[in-house]
């Protein structure tokens, strides 16, 4: 059969000639190969000093967005948890009381909202499922921990702080809708 790459070599077991038995030519060839590698440019990225440029569509740690007035978007509908193929998301819903209108946008909100970062496969189906534009994946990296339980992120880590809003526009065209 014709090879597609033109690199096919037919193996033969004919006895080696005298020059082949000396191995010197083969060794010299091998040494030239390693020498070429020595002069090559390294592709290593030295991490703490140099940070690799992420693709604009990179899917990293999640964020629970607030709207412009600083109210949480999430209504604990549970669609993200249903969409999640890794079963990483759980939540407990609660009803908004009077006087909490500045905290939650609609009358139902998530009392707890947990994502297990060890289960999560960062597929992004939760943000696709979300009808309220509440959960998004960002370009942030989930940091390492020593304990498994520390990877279960609650609302304290997921909801964006009021004073440092998290920019998701790098990979999202949405998240700017004002009215729902």
């Amino acid at each position, binding site marked *: 059969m014709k090879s597609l790459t033109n690199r096919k070599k037919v193996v033969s077991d004919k006895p080696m000639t005298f020059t082949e038995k000396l191995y010197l030519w083969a060794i010299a060839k091998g040494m030239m190969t390693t020498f070429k*590698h020595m002069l090559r440019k390294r592709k290593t990225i030295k991490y703490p000093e140099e940070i690799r440029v992420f693709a604009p569509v990179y899917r990293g740690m999640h964020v629970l967005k607030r709207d412009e007035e600083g109210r949480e978007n999430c209504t604990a509908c549970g669609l993200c948890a249903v969409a999640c193929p890794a079963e990483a998301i759980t939540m407990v819903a609660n009803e908004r009381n009077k006087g909490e209108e500045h905290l939650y946008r609609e009358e139902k909100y998530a009392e707890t909202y947990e994502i297990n970062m060890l289960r999560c496969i960062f597929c992004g189906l939760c943000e696709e499922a979300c009808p309220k534009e509440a959960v998004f994946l960002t370009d942030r990296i989930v940091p390492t921990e020593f304990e498994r339980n520390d990877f279960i992120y609650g609302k304290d880590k997921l909801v964006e702080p009021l004073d440092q809003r998290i920019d998701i526009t790098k990979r999202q065209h949405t998240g700017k809708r004002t009215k729902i």
Partner: protein
Amino acid sequence: MDTGLLIEKSILVVLLFLISLGIAAYSTYFERKLAAWIQDRVGPDRAGPFGILQPIADGTKMFLKEDFIPKNADKWLFIIGPGIAMFTALITSAIIPWGTDLELFGRKIPLQVTDFNIGILYLFAVLSISVYGIMIGGWASNNKYSLYGAIRASSQMISYELAMGISAITIILMSGSLSLSEIVEKQHGMNWNIFYQPVCFLVFFICSLAETNRAPFDLPECENELIGGYHTEYSSMKLGLYLFAEYIAMFISSAVMAILFFGGYNFPGMDAFSGNTLAILSVLAFFTKTFIMIFVFMWIRWTIPRFRFDQLMHLGWKALIPIALINMLVTAIVIAFKEGWFN
């Protein structure tokens, strides 16, 4: 006895000791760097700029490790083993002529600790003793892997010493002297032995690889079969001494090859200089040659896979010794012809 001579020799000895240790330490660093480059990696670069302090970190680590002696090991031999390895590796540097004479304080100081008239014999004697360091260490560990490593080391070193000795005899025939300084002087300028004896050099080089237990002849310490070979049971600085001894041996055998085949401290156009300038330049030339040889040692290690033990013995006894013998005989006949013995 002349006090000046005593002082000058002691300074030279201490200096050589420090240089040998320094070069051995930085050979480990350079070896790791070179391995990394050949494998498209970066290598150690965290300790200091470009990882230059890595050998110091490694040495400190060695000292801080627990010094463990196995329960059933022969305690005294276990301690003596690495000592012998290190000692024999260090004492060979005594006969190596590092450069032309230096003139300081009105004294003529030869850059050689002692000019033996049987320098090469001394070298081979010390090389033979160095087997004992490995042998004793492997035996005293009371571990079968160590013993295997030791047996392999001794059989390999003994078989390769023959071919090495015969190729050294060829060089002795060429220069007509056993003294290393005279052998070097005979190769004045660009009159190096390598141009007359390339086959001899090849045999000697392969044997040097085997003598220093470097890849592709590192069977005594192959990691994947023998878990380190003769130093399996060693820890802390005793292990460090073994590893260091290997690198010093590599440095010394590179130096010996530079002397026997690459003209030692001679360099082309050396007649244009004289006095201390010549001395410094000659030392530089010598170290350049030595470092190139060390580089080739390492380059080969990261290129060629390890031999099987029977292949090693085949190469030693069936290939190298006959080649070395024939080469020696041809050289002897040519020299006898030139001297007019057949007239």
